[in-house]
């Protein structure tokens, strides 16, 4: 991936939740009850003061509203669009107990954070330069959040990105009906500028640049490398057939370039997480006639959000539950997925095998972990491929911190932002003793 194509496929999508006008936002803001000790705050990983930012929309204090959100979550614009608010803040709103719709917190947050970003609003002054330099490895949400706070506190963040794009998966993996890549990059650029951070693209730390060198040249290191390539089902017969692809990789193509889906009639998506559900919705919206999800557990046990899956079903998604692939069939290119049914205990049922026809198969069973990247660095543990840290993102090796997917295994943007923020505050303390 280098730069975004103007004609990239994601531009065919429209926003699933369209931006609001000031009229819509004001009416909605006035519905908020301004709860005390509001449940929406405690449900937010970044602890954004939701009732207060909503009140500021209602009173017309839009800058104050954006300031409050961005103080707690510098990626507030992205999170407003990509957060699963149905299970976080809005999911805890008390209004449904009155039989009324929950406040649409995501859309309200988008309303003011879009304004902040488009208006270039930056709140408060950068602290005087401390002369301290911090290396951040990876340009995803956790590094961006960490760099933002470090920069505002007067330190010099230097971000190393092995690719050519800012934003990590926030740029290349968000469902395009929620946010497009260029918007994620705009936000990242706003954060980089506000933090006065330096970005070095095309540097694969650990390969192009030894970790030891990083430690030597910087006062602290933040590791936000995320996860690796899609895990594929390489052990299954037929897995080398053409047309079997990783879901995250494929979504990245939709997001960044123009892809050709002509002739694609039947696709299978393997997995039950949000990547699988997102890709199912995306394929349907791009006009693929048949999209079938194959997942080894019940629908109720899938990790993907039920509200997202319901949207996929509305779009025509089909599914085989409690079903697992045992091989791929085809001559040269994949033509189908051989599956077996599973018992309630997930044991294959003899003789239950059948073939789901498919001219393209997307594997969405997770991404590989990059913890062994840090094997050369002493005192950093990554037993199952995830970097071990305390609640401040501290790895155990003085000056070394980590956050985001490489720590949590793959969670929401808002979690990565919160972890980057926690690490930044810990790094600040480490560097200044304050």
């Amino acid at each position, binding site marked *: 991936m280098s730069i975004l194509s103007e004609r990239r496929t994601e531009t065919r999508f429209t926003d699933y939740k369209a931006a609001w006008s000031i009229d819509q936002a004001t*009416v909605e803001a006035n*519905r908020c009850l301004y*709860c*005390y000790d509001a*449940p929406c705050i405690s449900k937010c990983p970044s602890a954004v003061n939701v009732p207060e930012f909503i009140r500021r929309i209602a009173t017309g204090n839009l800058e104050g509203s954006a300031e409050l959100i961005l103080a707690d979550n510098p990626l507030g614009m992205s999170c407003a669009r990509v957060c699963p608010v149905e299970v976080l803040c809005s999911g805890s709103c*008390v*209004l449904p107990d009155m039989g009324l719709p929950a406040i649409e917190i995501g859309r309200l947050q988008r309303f003011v954070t879009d304004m902040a970003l488009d208006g270039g609003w930056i709140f408060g002054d950068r602290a005087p330069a401390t002369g301290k330099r911090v290396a951040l490895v990876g340009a995803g949400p956790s590094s961006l959040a960490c760099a933002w706070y470090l920069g505002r506190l007067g330190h010099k963040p230097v971000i190393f990105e092995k690719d050519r794009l800012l934003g990590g998966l926030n740029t290349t993996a968000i469902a395009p009906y929620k946010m497009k890549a260029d918007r994620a990059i705009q936000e990242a650029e706003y954060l980089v500028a506000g933090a006065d951070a330096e970005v070095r693209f095309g540097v694969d730390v650990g390969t192009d640049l030894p970790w030891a060198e990083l430690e030597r040249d910087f006062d602290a290191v933040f590791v936000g490398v995320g996860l690796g390539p899609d895990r594929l089902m390489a052990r299954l017969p037929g897995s080398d057939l053409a047309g079997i692809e990783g879901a995250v990789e494929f979504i990245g193509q939709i997001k960044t370039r123009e892809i050709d889906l002509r002739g694609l009639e039947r696709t299978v998506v393997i997995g039950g997480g949000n990547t699988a559900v997102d890709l199912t919705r995306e394929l349907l919206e791009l006009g693929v006639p048949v999209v079938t999800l194959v997942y080894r557990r019940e629908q109720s046990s899938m990790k993907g959000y039920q509200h997202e899956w319901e949207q996929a079903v509305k779009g025509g998604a089909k599914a085989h539950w409690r079903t697992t692939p045992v091989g791929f069939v085809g001559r040269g290119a994949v033509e189908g997925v051989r599956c077996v049914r599973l018992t309630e205990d997930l044991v294959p049922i003899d003789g239950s095998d059948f073939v789901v026809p498919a001219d393209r198969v997307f594997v969405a069973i997770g991404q590989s972990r990059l913890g062994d990247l840090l094997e050369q660095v002493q005192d950093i543990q990554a037993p199952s491929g995830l970097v071990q840290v305390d609640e401040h993102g501290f790895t155990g090796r003085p000056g070394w911190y980590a956050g985001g997917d490489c720590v949590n295994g793959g969670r929401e943007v808002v979690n990565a932002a919160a972890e980057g923020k926690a690490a930044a505050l810990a790094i600040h303390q480490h560097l200044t003793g304050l």
Partner: protein
Amino acid sequence: MPDISCNCAGITAPNPFWLASAPPTNTGDQIMRAFDLGWGGAVWKTLGDPVQNVSSRFGAINHNGTRAIGFNNIELITDRPLETNLREIREVKRLYPKHAVVASLMFGGRDEWIDAVKRCEDAGADGLELNFGCPHGMCERGMGSAVGQEPKINEEITRWVADVASIPVLIKLTPNVGDILPHGLASQRGGADGVALINTVKSIIGVDLDRFVPVPRVGNKGSNGGYCGAAVRPIALHMVAQLARSKEFNLPISGIGGISDWRHVVEFLLLGSTSIQVATAAMLQGFRIVEDMESGLQSWMRSHGFEKLDDFVGLAVPNYSEWGDLDINYEVVADIDRDKCIGCQVCYVACRDGGHDCITLKSDSRIPEVDEKECVGCNLCSHVCPVIDCITMKEVDNGFAPASWNEHLTKGTPIVPKKGVHE
């Protein structure tokens, strides 16, 4: 069906719903359209020496997304020639003989007043309403509230008109006074047949935050206006009741101020009005609001077994008491319905910060609890609760016989110990 025909100071109408003298009664066309939709009467936009108005004229207060809970205006009396208005009055009365058409008047000298009275009578007006109320513009010229604030001038001009008029004379009073009673009594002494109140409250409704000019803005200046709309209703109810309960004051009252639906109509009638007048609500939502007024009033009368307005006019007046005569031993405490509570905890923070800190939070539930031993029964929590009938005030038998503060002072009647004092 209950009879809602009305007689206020000898002016009769098919119902008590009258349009007040204001922009909705500027022309005969407007008034006839209103009568067609169900209004029983109309007080014509004040007649006088035609004015030149400014642009703009209205301001409004919005609150929590609700538009125009309070409204104000700097518009003056009619800007149309007297002859035009009189011709239209004649036409309206010809077509709507049973509806009440009242001419509002505002003039300077005695001769002008007397001339106008005769011409209005000739045009067929059912009554006159002398505008002693406008607190903007006209008062600077010695008219409107400038008259209403001086009992002697009020009485004198009332007498000029009452002495010559053969139709009922109402005096429209200004609320911009410390006590309404001397002003009602002045009109009574002058020979008025009734009073109408309130006119608007002198106000600045807002300031333009970027231009630093009071609104409504006229170029680079603004002026004080007359405040009206829903927000002034409590002021109006008090002034109506203050006159209605006075033993010295005996005139009929046409109630005005913030009326927009049938419940407000009932309130004004219960406090002694025999007709009501509406302007702002009709300006904000159109004449059609009268349909609900009539339907709601009829339903309410049926549910209480009232057959005509006189059955309930003034029923609340005897219950309007001095504070010192309230039963100080009467006690209520807040009661939260746990099934209805949605856990917003707004009652908690209101009681903590603005009440007596007698609602507590539990760690295992979002439903707050009332400490009845501390609750003083102030009602604050029940007013902030967003759920209808979730927090109610329940009566407590504290074992003390009824006693007022006055009885306590004069007779030593025991009163309950104070709650929520936190000594």
